[in-house]
């Protein structure tokens, strides 16, 4: 009744990979924005804010992303909130991404030499001004390579959304496997597509790191 050519398989996987890309972008951008907000609390002066972010990070880095997805998907529904798979997937991934990004970025902010804080303080700048004009511009430079590197984890993390029924690349892989009975080929192709998405990111992270490090040595 229905026959899949290799092209059909590839085409369907590629179509599904669009969702992987969209989901990755949403998670990364959303996670980035949330991460910035959390970073603001984490490196701010309020003790409560710092503790909150620490707890947040502990929670989201200390539990499997898969469980976070399950809870977002089935859990929120119980509170009367209607969460479609894409929303639950996006939400869980954003929360998860933010937890990692905020830690990466905190490390970058802390890597800025203490002298920079003191010099800017002695020029009369307030905390916000120090951050805005002196610390963050330097931290951003340090932050670019690990952030790009982490985007690979986000792309791979989207694979787990298949388990709550979101039809992205991995889910398409299992569905197509069942329609074709060719697991070796299908999962091989799926792996290749992920590789094609992730490898340029990893590579550019490495290159950026080398470039920025070399530039840094001149300081």
């Amino acid at each position: 009744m229905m026959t899949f050519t290799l092209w059909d398989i590839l085409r369907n996987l590629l179509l599904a990979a669009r969702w992987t890309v969209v989901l990755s972008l949403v998670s990364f951008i959303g996670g980035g924005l949330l991460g910035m907000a959390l970073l603001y609390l984490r490196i701010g002066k309020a003790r409560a804010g710092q503790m909150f972010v620490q707890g947040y990070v502990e929670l989201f880095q200390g539990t499997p992303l898969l469980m976070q997805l399950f809870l977002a998907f089935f859990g929120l529904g119980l509170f009367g909130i209607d969460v479609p798979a894409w929303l639950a997937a996006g939400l869980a991934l954003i929360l998860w991404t933010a937890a990692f990004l905020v830690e990466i970025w905190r490390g970058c902010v802390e890597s800025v030499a203490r002298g920079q804080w003191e010099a800017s303080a002695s020029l009369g700048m307030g905390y916000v001004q120090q951050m805005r004009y002196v610390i963050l511009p330097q931290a951003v430079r340090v932050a670019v390579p690990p952030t790009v590197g982490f985007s690979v984890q986000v792309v791979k993390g989207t694979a787990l959304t298949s388990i709550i029924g979101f039809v992205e690349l991995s889910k398409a892989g299992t569905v197509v496997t069942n329609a074709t009975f060719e697991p070796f080929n299908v999962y091989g192709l799926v792996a290749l597509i992920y590789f094609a998405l992730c490898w340029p990111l990893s590579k550019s992270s490495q290159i950026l790191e080398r470039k920025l490090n070399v530039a840094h040595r001149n300081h």
Partner: protein
Amino acid sequence: MSLIAITEVKKRFGDVEVLKGINLDVERGEVVAIIGKSGSGKSTLLRCVNGLEMIDDGSIMVAGAQLINDDLHLKALRLKVGMIFQQFNLFPHLSAGCNVMLSQMVVKKTPAREAEAMARRMLERVGLGHKFDAYPDQLSGGQQQRVAIARALSMQPMALLCDEITSALDPELVNEVLAVVKELAADGMTLMMVTHEMRFAREVCDRVVFMHQGRVHEIGPPEEVFGNPRTPELRQFLGAQLVV
């Protein structure tokens, strides 16, 4: 009235009392050198005057205003007193010119045009007018330190605090920085400087403060302090210095 009046200042880090009751008045236009062994509390004293460390006891008055630990008072204080560090601490992501312009624009809201004019003037004053667009990593240590001085001057402070500003420099670069400081002194700037350059202290300073174990151990005009040290600690300290 003194420009900087330090009265019975105490400062502890954890269990260790680093400043054990410092009294020191600095007059307007005076140049004071602070000398002493490593760990005697020289940096800590300067940092307290600039509000980078909070004092535990005593008081510090600058131009008649008490140093109080809140953002508003600290900002006011730092507009009166600039500080220059051993490690230069230039902002590596900004050119020399922007280093000098930044705080004027951010803190004093000076318009860019004026800030730039001021920056050019100050860089000129430290002999680096031609380095406006150079980035810190393109400058030698001595040049970086001079930019740091220009940066502090651009805020038009009443006094400058200098913490071993030549210690991180190669010997051949020390003089270019000291020459700038000498000129500042000649122009009437109030200076408090921690230094190991005894010859310079002797030549340029009005008074020398010898700190020992968190106290002002001896104080006086350079001829007296160097020529006729009264305490054995100071004698020993001066003896260990190669060039006096």
